[in-house]
């Protein structure tokens, strides 16, 4: 596929259709892809409209962003694709720290199941409409183990991790961030010199 420099007229028409029916706070275009910033309250209706009326039948990805220190703190990003035109549309909305919940779209795109579990696992945003909530009362973790108490992708979570203990399941300890055996030494030397091996950092 060629790199598009501008969004197609059809995609722009779709964005205008969404803006005509719902609140669109901001619309940006980058390398032929449109991004619409919408509101959390309307998001589920917008998603349904985009899927059923505009033909964005494929949900490529869901991700979350932590704007630590800003309010609202979190941002959800949904990447939709129109399968017939092979064109993407990105929808974003913000989620505040005090009410870190987001509407589930598993009823529209079943693939959202694991994506939403990952957002919960890594960022701690919950999805009250997720099938896990109906089945077991809460979202299950997907990358970390059930019982892990932290949300590692939040900006206030240290890279080295934190101590945790889940008896018979797993534990975690703070990782040393410098020195130790098998460290690489950045240098212009050959592979013999750069190979990770036992040495203490200066």
């Amino acid at each position, binding site marked *: 596929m060629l790199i598009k420099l501008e969004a197609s007229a059809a995609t722009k028409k779709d964005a205008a259709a969404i803006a005509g029916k719902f609140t669109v706070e901001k619309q940006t275009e980058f390398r032929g892809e449109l991004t619409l910033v919408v509101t959390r309250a309307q998001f589920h209706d917008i998603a349904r409209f985009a899927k059923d009326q505009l033909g964005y039948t494929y949900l490529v990805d869901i991700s979350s962003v932590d704007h630590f220190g800003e309010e609202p703190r979190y941002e959800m990003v949904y990447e939709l694709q129109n399968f017939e035109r092979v064109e993407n549309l990105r929808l974003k909305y913000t989620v505040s720290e005090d009410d870190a919940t987001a509407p589930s779209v598993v009823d529209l795109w079943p693939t959202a199941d694991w994506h939403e579990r990952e957002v919960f696992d890594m960022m701690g945003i919950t999805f009250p409409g997720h099938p896990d909530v109906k089945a077991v009362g809460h979202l299950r973790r997907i990358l970390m183990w059930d019982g892990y108490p932290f949300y590692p992708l939040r900006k206030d979570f240290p*890279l080295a991790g934190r101590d945790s203990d889940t008896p018979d399941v797993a534990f975690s300890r703070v*990782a*040393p961030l410098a020195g130790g055996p098998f460290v690489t030494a950045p240098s212009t030397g050959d592979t013999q010199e750069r190979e990770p091996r036992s040495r203490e950092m200066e």
Partner: protein
Amino acid sequence: MSTPVAYDSKIEGNIIFTKLDSAINWMRKNSLWPLPMGLACCAIELMATGASRFDISRFGAEVMRFSPRQSDVMIVAGTVTYKMALAVKRIWDQMPEPKWCIAMGACASSGGMYRSYAVLQGIDRLIPVDVYISGCPPRPEALIEGLLRLQRKIEGEHSFLAQKPALSAALA
């Protein structure tokens, strides 16, 4: 170092004299059955070591066993995440004695480049390791060198000598 086996063909015919420990260790070190705990890219090098070019069977360790009950040496090849760590420990506990462990590569030895919330910083925090192999990943030659070091270590073990006091106490 004195030779562990004394044999003089002129006077002894088909009889050799050796220590029980030496004979047992000789058998053990030349028929190590590895448990391939392949967790990341090191496992690819482990497979290459088992394949024809490097051919780990030259050292008697070609019988990869996926059942812990049948294996002697656990080769931890790759990144041990905390989620996997207790499973590795459980499989190690299921292996019968005598057993050994090779930590293959930087990750299994120390967490490697993964200084992170999700990765165990060395499998030696959970199970005793006999041989560490550096490299990311180590070449098959390095793994074979590690295996030879382990064989040398097994040569020097005194398992029966260590059991002798208990045996004499039981017989008395």
